[in-house]
């Protein structure tokens, strides 16, 4: 018998090529015992939602440093919902101005992590969000 693992999709939507942060987070979550599926750079919201579906993940982490988060995030949220995956918790990491935080939360985003966020906090928040 194997125990239930938390499955996380770490994705980079949009066109910026900075995936250092995404990889650090992926590794931290791995070290916390989670199974992290990494998609690579330049994913469309459609590709991300499709991967989330196929992998039956509990959490999607979006890493966005291009400033396009207000365009990309709602699309991902919509597609997850359309696929019947509204239970999936979405986290965002990257450069997100404070004034967008509230609107992202309203869209259903569970948490946002900016520069300087500790991996311990990220791990704890992800674990708590999955536990419900």
């Amino acid at each position: 018998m194997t125990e239930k693992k938390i499955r996380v999709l770490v994705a980079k939507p949009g066109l910026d090529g900075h995936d250092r942060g995404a990889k650090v987070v992926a590794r931290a979550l791995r070290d916390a015992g989670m199974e992290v599926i990494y998609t690579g750079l330049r994913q469309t919201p459609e590709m991300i939602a499709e991967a989330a579906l196929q992998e039956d993940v509990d959490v999607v982490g979006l890493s966005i440093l291009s400033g396009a988060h207000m365009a990309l995030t709602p699309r991902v949220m919509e597609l997850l919902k359309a696929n019947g995956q509204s239970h999936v918790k979405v986290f965002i990491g990257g450069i997100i101005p404070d004034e967008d935080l509230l609107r992202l939360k309203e869209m259903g985003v569970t948490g946002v992590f900016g520069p300087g966020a500790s991996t311990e906090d990220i791990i704890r928040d992800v674990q708590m969000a999955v536990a419900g």
Partner: protein
Amino acid sequence: MTYSQAILGGDRLALARLLTQVENDVPESRTALIELFPHTGKAHLIGVTGAPGTGKSSLVNQLALYYRKTKEKRVAIIAVDPSSPFTGGAVLGDRVRMRDLSGDTGVFIRSMATRGSLGGLAQSTANMAQVFDAAGFDIVIIETVGAGQSEVDVARLAHTTLVVEAPGLGDDIQAIKAGILEIADILVINKSDRPGVENTEKALKSMLELAHPTERVFQHHGQSMRTAAPRQDSSSAPMWIPPIQRTVATEGKGIAELAESIALHVAYLTQSGGWGLRERARLEVELEALIREKLLNRFREDVPQKRYDEILEKVIQRNISPWEAVRMLIDK
């Protein structure tokens, strides 16, 4: 509607959910597997294994693309990556190389961590492959890192096993070592645009000649007819000699030829009765594993943990041997 009904109706979310249940081996998954079993046995299972960095994921990407574009087959991919032995976590990165396949509903990619369970990987992979089979996928590709026995076992589930090599990974002594090369139905030299490809091919060829000594004659054209003819007469199937295919997966080179080799292997299996034999062996292994699990559970129910611990302690103290312990626990 149950998961199995939904899956037979083409529901992709139900498919993804059931795969999770099967991987976690929860009791509900057994019910679904029972219901789906009559619908299995149609898919062609292709195992892809080889050392890390030989380009397995890129190759699988190209192969799936080829099957989609030219044969219109539905392709499922189970991509296995290792779990950390210390934390149990994993980073599953095979999808990074398979981005060409996204957006195509005829392809379903599922990443899977080895989870380090004893023999459990082969079992859960087999079950997941059955789910894809029942869901109507024509081809199920199982990609594993060829680094350990369990991965070899997984590759062995397949009807056709590809072992992927790349130039510059080792000399000819590596090639004659026992292990994953022996399970190959087709040997692939990926990254064949790199220097050293001749040496790799030569090493693999000599390894094959050692493995199939009778076939050495086979390769000399003058004599090949004589040795091949009587074997065919005695109704025993001719031997399959693993072909060596060169590919450059990142450029899509050699993929059509590789697919051709795979098709030849399927034809060979069908003609020689090998397909049936492999199916039989696979299901027998599966049945045995299930029996073992059931018996172990029954034993655990029968024997109180306390008694088990007591006897284990005696063994540790060297008061009794493990063989006597088994007699005391099981024969009472």
